[in-house]
């Protein structure tokens, strides 16, 4: 996991995040009440984030850009989840928008495909005709609009080292449907859709920055709703629609 993350490009001059890993308590008293398959719970108190899972607890300090993971077992998942949360918390202040989305490269342009579980992010990634930045976690930046890999993956196996950054041409909400259908969303609706896939911890300051970035993204990058079925490859029609002059 760490070698994968190390390949991900990052702009220079940025203070690194420091994470300390401790195979030791303290555990919260209610740790055993977490079902093992439950996702980690992320909460904010002041400038500190707390990530709680059955197998670990992580504390992230937004001011000092440092964190600690207290884990019950020496597995990589706790560190990966803590680093995901740290990155998602850090990106908005750097002008980046962390999205729960698959990032695909089509003809040199990046498109982020987002939607609820089951909408087809991983399936689409597996069928992609070009490089895949991630099947579940990408970062958008806006000056200029670009799509970045984060080094984090979901269900799919990483096929090859992805490119670090490509120009962003579209944000696409996925929905399963009987036939291919693509329509552009108005900026207000696009913003509300994007808010549903922001991977930003529940901290008002982080969310204020992220919402401003999402509003800018919804204004300067076309946002579409794409209905599709895995039985019918969407690429040709998608390419044609994205290449069409926008009015």
């Amino acid at each position, binding site marked *: 996991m760490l070698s994968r993350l190390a390949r991900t490009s990052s702009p220079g001059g940025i203070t690194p995040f420091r994470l300390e890993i401790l195979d030791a308590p303290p555990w919260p008293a209610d740790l055993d009440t977490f079902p093992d398959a439950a996702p980690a719970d992320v909460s*904010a108190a002041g400038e500190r984030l707390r990530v709680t899972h059955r197998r670990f607890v992580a504390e992230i300090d937004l001011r000092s850009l440092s964190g600690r993971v207290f884990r019950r077992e020496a597995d990589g998942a706790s560190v990966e989840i803590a680093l995901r949360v740290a990155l998602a918390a850090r990106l908005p202040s750097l002008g980046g928008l962390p999205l729960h989305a698959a990032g695909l490269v089509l003809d040199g342009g990046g498109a982020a495909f987002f939607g609820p579980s089951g909408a087809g992010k991983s399936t689409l990634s597996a069928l992609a005709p070009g490089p895949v930045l991630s099947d579940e976690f990408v970062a958008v930046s806006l000056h200029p609009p670009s799509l970045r890999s984060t080094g984090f993956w979901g269900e799919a196996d990483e096929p090859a080292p992805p490119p670090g950054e490509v120009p962003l041409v579209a944000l696409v909400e996925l929905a399963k449907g009987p036939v291919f259908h693509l329509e552009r969303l108005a*900026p*207000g609706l696009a*913003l*509300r859709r994007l*808010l*549903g896939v922001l991977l930003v911890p*529940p*901290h*008002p300051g982080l*969310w*204020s920055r*992220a*919402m*401003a970035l*999402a*509003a800018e993204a*919804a*204004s300067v990058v076309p946002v579409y709703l794409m209905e599709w079925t895995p039985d019918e490859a969407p690429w040709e029609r998608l390419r044609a629609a994205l290449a069409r002059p926008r009015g």
Partner: protein
Amino acid sequence: MRYRRAPNLAWQALGAETVLVDLGRGRSLGLNATGGLVWGLLGEHDEREIAAEVARRFGIDEDEARAGVGRLIASLLDRGLVEEA
């Protein structure tokens, strides 16, 4: 009566719409232009001042504005998005 925005919220205007996100409850709410104006004035102005500004900005009767602002604030109170100051 004066109100303030509840803690643990984030909001953003885009065009005529303002979107509120309640981070504690994981819910969002869209406000139209009138609602966005009211939201922007909460905390700094009392209900009567807000209604006067809504009447002035949208060219409507002040009683009508007061009733509309009252309904909106009641709805926001009900959702836990504002609280009495």
